[in-house]
């Protein structure tokens, strides 16, 4: 599967720096509360970067800064060596595809219509989709294995199918950067593996927020660990996912088993607190 158009003139194609995004002293405030606090990070080209952290850590807010939705309060955020806010919304849409968790719309669309929306950034004003565009839509739907659901309504799809449909829309955008906000949320393990496998096959710059630390460790090239709007650690998973970091951020004891051959690690959490609580509940009931 290839989502990179040879004819498309994207900003990213003309710049070959190692870092796609560079943030320094980035603050994002809502009213007076500071949601993102003095962030400094780089997102590397053609790598998969995972943003991890507890609920409310600021993962989604950070992702929304990356595609220009959240306008930062101070600091700098550059995209391909240029201030991200110097790009028009259309230019950003031609370079960055985003898959968000969105509430179902009251007005249902079928899968083909929804995926066709991905053509918008590259369609000229007052022009119609060409035969090639239509073929791209069909092929993206085939890539995510939803060909049999081409004219099914989006709202009738399962959670995994909805995610795959949204991913197909992003594929049609033909960008070199893909941002995903918790793409594995609400999915069972098989569908989590399927969707991540699909994302990996794209072979482009990926930034995603993810909750499952074991999957993050295996799937991502680099990780950014966040807590309370700040970056606690960043880098390779072996440097980020340490027992002390996890204890500090998630307030749970964790045991890390390193796999020396793949430099990946397996995390086991201490669930004894849960067990003792369960025991006490059953204990009370029995009494």
């Amino acid at each position, binding site marked *: 599967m290839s989502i990179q158009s040879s004819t498309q003139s994207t900003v990213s194609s003309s710049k070959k720096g190692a870092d796609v995004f560079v943030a320094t002293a980035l603050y994002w405030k809502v009213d007076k509360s500071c949601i993102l606090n003095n962030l400094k990070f780089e997102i590397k080209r053609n790598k998969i970067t995972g943003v991890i952290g507890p609920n409310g850590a600021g993962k989604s807010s950070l992702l929304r800064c990356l*595609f220009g939705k959240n306008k930062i309060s101070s600091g700098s955020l550059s995209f391909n060596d240029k201030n991200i806010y110097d790009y028009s919304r259309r230019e950003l849409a031609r370079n960055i595809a*985003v898959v968000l968790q*969105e509430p179902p*719309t*009251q*007005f249902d669309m079928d899968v083909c219509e*929804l995926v066709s*929306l991905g053509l918008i*950034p590259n369609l000229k004003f007052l022009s119609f989709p060409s035969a090639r565009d239509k073929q791209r839509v069909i092929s993206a739907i085939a890539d995510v294995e939803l060909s049999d659901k*081409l004219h099914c309504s989006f709202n009738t799809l399962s959670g995994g199918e909805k995610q795959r449909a949204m991913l197909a829309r992003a594929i049609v955008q033909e960008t070199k950067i893909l941002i995903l906000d918790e793409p594995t949320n609400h999915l069972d393990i098989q569908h989590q593996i399927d969707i991540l496998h699909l994302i990996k096959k794209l072979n482009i710059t990926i930034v995603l927020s993810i909750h499952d630390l074991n999957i993050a460790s295996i799937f991502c090239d680099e990780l950014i660990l966040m807590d309370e709007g700040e970056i606690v650690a960043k880098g390779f998973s072996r440097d980020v996912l340490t027992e002390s970091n996890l204890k500090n951020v998630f307030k749970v004891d964790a045991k890390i088993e390193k796999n020396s051959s793949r430099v990946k690690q397996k995390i086991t959490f201490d669930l004894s607190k849960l067990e003792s609580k369960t025991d006490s509940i059953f204990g009370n009931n029995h009494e």
Partner: protein
Amino acid sequence: MSRLFALSNRFTLVIFCSTAFLIFSLIFATGRGNVIISFDQVFDSIFVCGSSNLDCGVKLVYQKIVWDIRIPRILMAFLTGAGLSIVGAILQSVTRNPLADPYLFGISSGAALGAVLVISTFSGVIIAGSALSITFGALVGGIFSVVLMLFLAGNASLQVDKLLLSGVAVSFMLGAFTSLVIYYSNPDTASSLLFWIMGSFSNSSWSQLTLPSITLVICLVTFLIYQRWISAIQAGDEGALTLGVPVSSLRLMMLVLSSILTAVLVSQVGGIGFVGLMIPHICRFIVGNQLYKVLLMCVVLGGSFMIWVDVFARSILDEQVLPVGIVTSALGSLFFFVILKTKSNN
């Protein structure tokens, strides 16, 4: 791919049949009224005699009735039905609210207040004379309501829910003023005002068709140009933003255009409710959710629907014309009962 073509062929067939039905409706409705004119005489008046009153085998009085009374009235009904329906479809899409309709933002109340102020201030002079002043008053009132709504919403006008709340507030406020003006009017003026508010095509003339026609065409073309972006908003604001769609400004533009078209129509024919709410839902049921299909279907079906409503309003009582707004409201409530019943059964 073959299935895609099959679906687009289906839409072509549906539009073709609906347009044929619309043409039939236009000709049939021209023959109905206090004076019943046969189908072939209507046909000859329109297509053989033309508007130049030639001796073509149709009585001159029938030609006069067809050209000077019936056709302007029917075209006005068509424009009103088509216009309110496309505005309903657009507002439902850009606000993602299936209950949005052209009157949601207080446009009807504003237009009614404008018309009522003109009628009551100049009393019988205006009613007997030019309808243009009433139209102008209603137009100013309708646009004033939109400006007031945007002003009240302030910065929040970029958020759908706050915009809706502001619109509802304006609607009630202007509605209260309208009632106050009617309350202090003399009985004759009050009855004229009430009849105007309930909607009618009785005073339609060729000269009155110009403004609604031009506004309808401009709005429809603009809606069709931006239909892809509007569809993206329909699927979600944030998603649309990531596709490069200027969500806030596009929504505002659609809102202003919808308001202008509604104000123009309401100023000509009075308040006709439920059409903008009901017809887009029926169109989506027939042709699916793709916006350009819904819009084109709204023009044909909304126009046909209003022509038949007018025929019904003219025919149901002897020597008397029922206000159109009463018929559309009655049908609208029936429509929602049917929807409710169907959904409950499912």
